[in-house]
């Protein structure tokens, strides 16, 4: 299996690489080279940091066009993690209104409940969607590690699993080959390893 972690200069990839190695993935690369991306069986879109800066980097590298082709046309499985999950949505109001890759009809905004502590950091329980393939074999209300200041919501059915912090927000989505998780499966011990394995195995 050949997994490419998309490199657009945002975030620490050590644990993602470590988790893939742990699961026994033979070929792991971190790259923004379109040839390498084309050869990949699965793509992981990671990311930590600001939405608008990330989109600028992605556009500078022309990764947006490539990703649209591979993900929407070729139906290559992709897993977005944290900011990567948000980037595949329509828009975010972090810093300023900016537009994402638009694979998923969703928006990213501040937590509406002003009484809660932001960022949302630590393990929190995920209310697992019964139809979910990503969570196959993972119990409802399992704990995953979150660290984020903005949350995703959607008016569409994107097969989402939810997390509660103040209100409910989207912890994960899966639409055909497009999947995303707000939490960090690579920092969520065996719960996270199981989920990454499901992505690699079942999509």
């Amino acid at each position: 299996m050949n997994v490419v972690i998309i490199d657009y200069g945002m975030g620490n990839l050590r644990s993602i690489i470590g988790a893939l190695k742990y699961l026994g993935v033979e070929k792991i690369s971190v790259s923004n080279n379109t040839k390498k991306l084309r050869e990949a069986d699965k793509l992981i879109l990671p990311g930590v940091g600001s939405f608008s800066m990330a989109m600028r980097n992605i556009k500078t590298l022309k990764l947006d066009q490539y990703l649209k082709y591979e993900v929407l046309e070729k139906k290559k499985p992709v897993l977005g993690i944290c900011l990567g999950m948000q980037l595949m949505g329509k828009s975010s109001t972090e810093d300023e209104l900016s537009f994402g890759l638009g694979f998923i009809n969703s928006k990213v905004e501040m937590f509406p409940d002003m009484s809660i502590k932001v960022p949302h950091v630590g393990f929190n329980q995920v209310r697992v969607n019964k139809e979910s393939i990503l969570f196959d074999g993972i119990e409802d209300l399992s704990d995953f590690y979150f660290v984020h200041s903005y949350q995703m919501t959607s008016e569409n059915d994107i097969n989402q699993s939810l997390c509660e912090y103040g209100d409910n927000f989207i912890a994960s989505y899966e639409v055909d080959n497009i999947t995303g998780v707000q939490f960090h499966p690579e920092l969520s011990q065996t719960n996270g390893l199981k989920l990454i394995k499901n992505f690699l195995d079942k999509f």
Partner: protein
Amino acid sequence: MLRKRIIFTLIYENGFFNQSRNFRLQKVGGIDWLEKNYKFKEISIALDELVVLNVARGEKNMFEFSKTLEKIVEDVFIPISAGGGIRSIEDAELLFNSGADKIVINTILVEDNDLVTRLVKKFGSQSIVASVDYRCDEVFINNGTVKVDKNLEDHLENVELLGVGEIYLNSIDKDGTGFGYDLKTVAKVIEKIKAPLIIAGGAGNEAHLAQGLNIDCINAVATANLFNFIGDSLVKSRERLLNDRYSLAFWDIEAASELKNSLINKKL
């Protein structure tokens, strides 16, 4: 429900891990010693989070620290925060690239607010942990050697305004004593703190951890006490607290060995 966390802190100085007591350091051993006595890769599967602090006095060797960090984080799938001596964006980048998920800053919270703002902007609030060392109402920077003009409450207020993601509140008087956390001071300042709060300094046993976890506004309890929590004893404490229905995250530790190499030779 958002769970609480138990954090293990490693105090590092020029090649050695240390037991710190009231910020006086006692060398304990190098990375091989740590691996041998704590079986780090094994116990990390049962911990919430790790903090690694470079507390070398004077000029810190960031490069050497980053190399040590790389060794510590290998095969460890928990969030790692690292810091000590960060004075530039490049220092922060070096630690992120060496395996830190978050960086810990302290002295620049007083000496270089402009840099803090730039770090928050570049890496996001959620990647920045503000470490605050205090004694009674006084705040200290530079490994507890320099007293700050502002009192603790004013300092915390400023730290919040800078937009950091978490606060690591460390009592110098309780540090390494094993006498329990300084909950008195925590109670005084807790109203001021809106960011997630980690308390440190003084935990010597499981009951101390529990006392911290019992307080609503405390999000995480940390210990750097290598002696009181030797080997897997922090893991055992966590297990018992979890069984006592403390709100800690749960995952199946046994599943790790089944997952290892489970995708090897997997053809599509």
